[in-house]
């Protein structure tokens, strides 16, 4: 599938086609829940500085596929390679060790803790006495929030007291603070207003320029057209196809999502 024709595609943007292995290769991934094949032999890949959209209906398997990469689910079959090296990802700690960071649709914040504690959850700064260094963490948190969302001020309130956009800022800060190389964004703009959506779009451009690879899961075809370099479409747990955004229209993507077929003109190029 994808990996077979990468080398031949000289016209691909951003890091692809240069002969180096992809940042992430997910090969032939399958995962079932009680007889239902949520993900059925799907392969996708991602290059440095690239945004790959994952599209599909609810229940198409895109979130499940990506949770295999972030360590939340374990695959039944398949292989994950990072920079060409096969890796074992059996829990979120493994994913973090491989510089894979995830912004979940549900944000995955501990509502009772403040922004700083959430930002550093699982990776707290420690004083020489082995205690958590709250002051240093808050200082770091203020620094990164000043870049991401200068209006953010509620550093000492539990995140349950924050607005949707503020919570999103915390979730994004957590993903980008720790030098992510691979970023997974599961509908990052779902709960946001127009201003904050633009903020996320700007951030994605910024991260791309730093050579970070991004998987962007979204319902919204327009957002994918705007932000992504390529798009992989899934339906009923299977991969419909992967296309270059430059080669397709909104309607092409929509028909892939709804009909589960790759449009003819794209298919010809792809094969």
């Amino acid at each position, binding site marked *: 599938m994808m990996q077979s024709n990468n080398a031949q595609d000289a016209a691909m943007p951003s890091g692809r086609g240069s002969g180096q292995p992809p940042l992430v290769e997910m090969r032939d991934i399958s995962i079932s829940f009680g007889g239902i094949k949520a993900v059925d032999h799907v392969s996708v890949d991602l290059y440095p500085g690239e945004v790959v959209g994952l599209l599909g209906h609810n229940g198409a398997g895109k979130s499940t596929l990506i949770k295999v990469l972030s360590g939340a689910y374990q695959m039944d079959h398949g292989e994950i390679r990072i920079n060409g090296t096969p890796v074992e990802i059996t829990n979120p700690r493994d994913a973090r060790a491989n510089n894979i960071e995830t912004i979940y649709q549900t944000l995955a914040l501990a*509502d009772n803790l403040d922004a700083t504690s959430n930002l550093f959850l699982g990776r707290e700064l420690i004083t020489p006495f082995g205690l*958590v260094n709250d002051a240093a963490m808050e200082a770091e948190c203020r620094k990164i929030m000043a870049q991401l969302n200068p209006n953010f001020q509620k550093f000492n309130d539990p995140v349950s007291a924050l607005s949707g956009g503020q919570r999103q800022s915390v979730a994004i800060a957590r993903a980008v603070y720790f030098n992510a190389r691979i970023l997974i964004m599961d509908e990052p703009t779902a709960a946001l207003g127009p201003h904050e959506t633009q903020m996320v779009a700007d951030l994605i451009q910024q991260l791309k320029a730093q050579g970070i690879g991004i998987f962007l899961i979204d319902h919204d075809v327009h957002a994918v057209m705007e932000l992504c370099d390529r798009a992989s479409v899934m339906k009923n747990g299977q991969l419909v196809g992967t296309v270059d955004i430059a080669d397709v229209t909104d309607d092409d993507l929509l028909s892939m999502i709804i009909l589960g077929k790759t449009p003819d003109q794209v298919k010809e190029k792809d094969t």
Partner: protein
Amino acid sequence: MTDTSSQPIPQKVKRGLFQQLELDMRLLGMIGAFLILCIGFNIVTDGRFLTARNLFNLSIQTVSVAIMACGMVFIIVTRHIDLSVGALLATTSAVMAMTQTELLPHMLGLGLDNPATWAITLVVGLAVGTLIGAFHGWMVGYLTIPAFIVTLGGFLVWRNVAWYLTSGQTIGPLDSNFLMFGGTNGTLGTTASWMIGLFATAIAIWALWSARRAKAAHGFPVKPAWAEATLACVIACAILGYVYILNSYAIPTRKLQRMFEAKGETMPEGLVVGYGLPISVLILIIVAVTLTIVARKTRFGRYIFATGGNPDAAELSGINTRLLTVKIFALMGFLCALSAVVASARLANHSNDIGTLDELRVIAAAVIGGTALSGGIGTIYGAILGALIMQALQSGMAMVGVDAPFQNIVVGSVLVLAVYIDIVYRKRLGAK
């Protein structure tokens, strides 16, 4: 965005004395309830409640439940429950009673009052408690059996393991050195108590000061200096006042006479010696301070609260929540064993019904102290205050002469009422 404040860090306009002091209103409410209770009982009993003697007794009666309530906070914060703490206390108490009266004298040939006996007993008891707790935690965390079921089973199992170990008999008298953990038989005396009180005051003021310095170093907003000073004064008065009360409870002359006779000396005429701080209360204070630091200043504590707030988020943040569960239950087991030391030493023997209904008192203390059963919220000092309020209620009613059934009816009603007040309070604050 609702934030309109300007850069870099806004100094919020603060109104009112309490806001400036940045005190926990919940804590103040509980202290207020406790004081009203004390003063009320004092009036009804014609001044017999607020005496040094009664406050001393109240302290040593609270310790056993309060120690376990500290551990229960962590259990409930992570959305679990432990119904087996009373039974676990009985089993560890039985193990320790048998160790010091049967095993050590007969197998190792140590006499009942050998100086090594109490230490070995303590280590054995604490190890057994920790292991049983860890076993519970393993079943909850790794086998994913609900904690309610694991500890409901444990409640029956350990209560009857204790029965089996002792054949249902009361085991006593216990090792005389071991009894120092019970309360009246082990106090530090007035001088050492004052020293500990001054030391604790110094530590508390240093902690306040260093927290302020750390905030200031990063340019974060700090409280006004007078607010900090007022807080320091209140803390110092509370600590030293408590020590003063415990010191002014004099050891009865007859008992003092016996103590001198035991040492082969004669007691000087008219000598008055205060009890001072009981070792059991000192143990509770050490447990409370340690666990408060654990809760607020260690990764372990941070993960406990994160797991309680959102277990999925904790797991996805790379926290090993299963191992965390084992650790929390192991800690609970350890604290049950520690409570067993205090409880059996206070009674000077191990009786078959030791710790009966303690699980309910411990859960009630934690809940009255503000621990939310929905998880993620709870404080150690709250649980201890909760235990103190319940004990004050119980012994106050006993002093007034309320019949035993009515005592329990009142305590049960207060539990429900306290939780209802808490719900109303949280709703008004707009928090979940």
